[in-house]
């Protein structure tokens, strides 16, 4: 499997480490949003058969975090973005 790194171009998937659902970026403030919301964030994942946004880490490369949009049925990768850019677009400050 080849991941098209937004900066470095096509790289073998073995260079990357998979973390999981990209919803990890959207951590709610547990003190404000309440325990139910935070529990949901921490433990519950949708497990779609189809398009899925996930976090990958370029361990054997520039060590950037990426948000990879991948079809879990066909393994086709439709989009790769720097997690930093995605987080900024979602107005995450950290």
């Amino acid at each position, binding site marked *: 499997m080849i991941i098209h790194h937004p*900066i470095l171009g096509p790289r073998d998937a*073995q260079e990357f480490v998979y973390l999981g659902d990209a919803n990890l970026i959207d951590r709610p403030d547990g003190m404000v949003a309440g325990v139910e919301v935070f529990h949901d964030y921490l433990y519950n994942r949708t497990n779609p058969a189809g398009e899925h946004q996930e976090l990958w880490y370029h361990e*054997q*490369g*520039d*060590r*950037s975090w990426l948000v990879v949009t991948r079809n879990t049925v066909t393994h086709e990768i439709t989009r790769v973005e720097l997690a*930093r850019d995605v987080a900024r677009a979602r107005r995450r400050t950290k």
Partner: protein
Amino acid sequence: MASLQPLTALGRREATTVTHGPLTISERTDVALASVAARNGRAADLAKAAQKADVPLPGPASHQQGTPYSAFWTAPEMWFVEAPYASHELIVDLLKSALADTASITEQTDAWVAFDLSAHDLTRLLERLCNVDFAARPTGYATRTVMEHLGVYLIKHGPGAARLYGPRSSAESLLHAIETAAHSVW
């Protein structure tokens, strides 16, 4: 005060040179190294300060030669800067005074072992060691890759010239891996 003798990454007094067939592996102990990372939101200020101080900050996956500073890209908004050790032993202090608070600078000199590889053509050696398509990459290409389970930086200075930075504590293992690959090529 104790009289201390500096040792190379391979534990010797002098830099090691190994030859096998057309390949020469030269350990480099005369390079001072520091990492430069732009502070949050200060990339433009860093670029300005670096230009004034003659510190090159090349684009992704590339190395830029200069005097006295050369540099290669390691991550978004982060570089490794090289300089001659004799004149720039205190590379961090020198860079800090040049770049001020635009960047975070960390001493790297003694964290790495540097090997210069030279031969007529390094392609067949490097294709046994890592997944970088060395022949297809341009001169000045710099990347992090893995050789024998060790994370290393590989810089292409020409079809037959490359520099490797590997973890200093695994210097012997990295040298052994290069020698083993060399024996299967030549």
